[in-house]
């Protein structure tokens, strides 16, 4: 049998169901892998070895007793440190929540446990999910398994790095401006932003509530689909949850057929500012889809050019409000409570000490954009641009079934290169932001390596809200055809940990 950590979730699922391997063995293999490589990758903030092994033994016991178990029972998973987890710390990569043990499970955490997945630990992230590199984590950056001197993307960079480094076959993250798809792209794995409202936000520490969308990572399109299905669905605890069936993503991933599909290449998500090797791999992927029977046209979405500025008004505005809850009173860090200082002084000192530079920048930017006198010129205008972007999508989806673009303008950049240049960092989400603003669904799937640096490139596929299954049809078709050309999955070429 293949080494357990090299197996996909689907392969592990089959081997576990057939009794060829136990959940405890699978879990132990992944814990060993974490012990062997995570000092270099730093994908995890907390590893829950004892809990994971106990959960795995419980699954094995239930399987032996003949209990019916779901497809992911016994399959290990890594959880971004933004999801609340009873019995495990939840820091959001921030000093202000260092050592915090949440009193309840996020709905998705509960669903993962119910599905029988084995939570290996919590993964590193940019503080409060604000960033594109994990360099904004208070606990140090994660590293890209393709090249340890480069970022794994962000904010869910720890989750992406864990999957790319074979520390976990699956992981979950959250996507607010691209925080699943961008790290998936630069780590050479698959990541999906489901339709907004399709996956629950209950127990996900809020960054920008109208955008935050939990979603899956996997090394294959089918694995991402299996996790997508297990974690999604209506949740009455989330008032923005959509009461609709989960789109048939697993069936679509198995179908892997684009014949007759209409695919639109977005004119505005290309050209100046894009790395040549990213554009050439993307163009080849589009040709490949055409050769598989898709009808490819070019589609213009004129307001996408304004998505980035609109996002950097909307997301900071929402964050400035959401992060007001960190007030040093009920949980988390408290600094300067000397019996003399009043509550507001303690609050201000705590937030000064507890938040990192990017979080402060965004809180202040959001406070500015929402100030009376600027509201209409900034936040109000950004909300109108959001409407125009939705209208662009609506018009485009009147002509085509899915839209495609590169997932990121460049491959993984070196650690430190953009750390203190916020605008350069923000550009990493250029292609992914429109889908967040519109609340529809999108995926990144590996489509090769850029010739100039040998680093992975992601093909980005966007679909209308609640048509998440279309993403998996296209991504699985591209994945199968590309693996046929390469003779192996792209990730087999990653040498950063050799």
């Amino acid at each position, binding site marked *: 049998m293949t080494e357990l950590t090299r197996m996909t979730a689907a392969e592990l699922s089959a081997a576990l169901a057939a009794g060829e391997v136990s959940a405890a063995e699978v879990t132990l293999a992944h814990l060993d892998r974490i012990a062997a490589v995570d000092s270099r990758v730093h994908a995890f903030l907390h590893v829950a070895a004892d809990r994971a092994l106990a959960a795995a033994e419980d699954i094995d016991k239930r399987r032996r007793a003949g209990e019916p178990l779901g497809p992911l029972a016994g399959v290990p998973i890594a959880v971004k440190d933004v999801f609340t987890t009873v019995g495990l710390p939840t820091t959001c990569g921030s000093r202000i929540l260092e050592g*915090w*043990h949440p009193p309840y499970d996020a709905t998705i955490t509960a669903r993962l446990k119910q599905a029988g997945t084995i939570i290996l630990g919590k993964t590193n992230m940019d503080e409060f999910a604000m960033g594109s590199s994990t360099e904004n984590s208070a606990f140090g950056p994660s590293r890209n398994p393709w090249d340890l001197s480069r970022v794994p993307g962000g904010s869910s960079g720890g989750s992406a790095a864990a999957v790319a480094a074979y520390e976990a076959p699956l992981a979950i993250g959250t996507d607010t401006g691209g925080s699943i798809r961008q790290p998936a792209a630069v780590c050479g794995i698959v990541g999906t932003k489901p339709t907004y409202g399709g996956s629950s936000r209950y127990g996900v520490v809020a960054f920008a509530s109208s955008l935050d969308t939990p979603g899956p990572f996997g090394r294959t399109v089918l694995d991402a689909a299996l996790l997508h299905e297990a974690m999604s669905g209506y949740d009455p605890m989330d008032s923005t949850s959509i009461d609709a069936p989960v789109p048939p993503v697993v069936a679509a991933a198995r179908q892997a057929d684009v014949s007759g599909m209409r695919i639109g290449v977005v004119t505005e998500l290309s050209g100046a500012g894009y790395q040549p090797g990213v554009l050439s791999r993307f163009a080849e992927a589009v040709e490949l889809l055409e050769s598989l029977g898709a009808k490819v046209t070019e589609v213009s979405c004129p307001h996408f050019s304004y998505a980035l500025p609109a996002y*950097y008004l909307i997301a900071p505005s929402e964050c400035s409000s959401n992060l007001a809850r960190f007030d040093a009173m009920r949980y988390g860090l*408290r600094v300067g409570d000397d019996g003399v*200082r009043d509550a507001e002084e303690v609050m201000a000192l705590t937030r*000064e000490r507890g938040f990192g530079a990017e979080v*402060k920048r965004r809180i202040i930017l959001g406070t500015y954009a929402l100030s009376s006198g600027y509201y209409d010129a900034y936040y109000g205008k950004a909300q109108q641009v959001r409407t*125009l972007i939705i209208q662009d999508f609506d018009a485009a989806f009147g002509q085509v079934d899915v839209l495609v673009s590169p997932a990121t303008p460049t491959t993984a950049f070196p650690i430190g290169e953009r750390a203190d240049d916020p605008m350069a960092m923000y550009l990493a989400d250029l292609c992914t932001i429109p889908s967040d603003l519109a609340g529809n669904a999108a995926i990144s799937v590996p489509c090769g390596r850029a010739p100039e640096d040998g680093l992975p490139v992601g093909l980005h596929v966007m679909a209308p809200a609640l048509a998440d299954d279309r993403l998996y049809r296209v991504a699985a078709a591209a994945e199968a055809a590309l693996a046929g050309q390469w003779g192996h999955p792209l990730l087999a070429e990653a040498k950063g940990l050799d």
Partner: protein
Amino acid sequence: MIPKILHRTRIFQDLLRCPGTTACHRSTVPRLHRDVGRRAACATVATLLLTARYRRAHKMAGMSITRDEVAHLARLSRIALSDAELDHLAPQLDQIITAVAQVQEVAAEGIPPTSHATGLTNVFRDDVPITCLTPEQALDQAPAVEQQRFRVPRILGED
């Protein structure tokens, strides 16, 4: 051109506080005062501040946000920024605000704003009791607890 000294936040706040007297207008917004006329209502001045003309003028002044404004916003945000951080953050925020101000180029006359993409409104749950945290669970992670309550620093002044 709007004089540099007239930072937008200051002007707006001063106007909100403005009793409407000539003296007030003259002291806080001399140039705008001349622009809009002696009897201009504060609301009119406030509206004017948001016009493209004002923004253009402001852009020409070369700065979209000043260090003092950042310090004020940090106070509103309850973040006790150090001087060194202010020196570092202010120019970065200026750069970011200049970039995001691009949204103002978009012709959006009559376009409704979107705050939320799902279009859901008035979501209620069924009015049934559900279990909630026990006092022990709720207080478990508190920085300080006293008599089954969150103990907080004083919230009122000495006098």
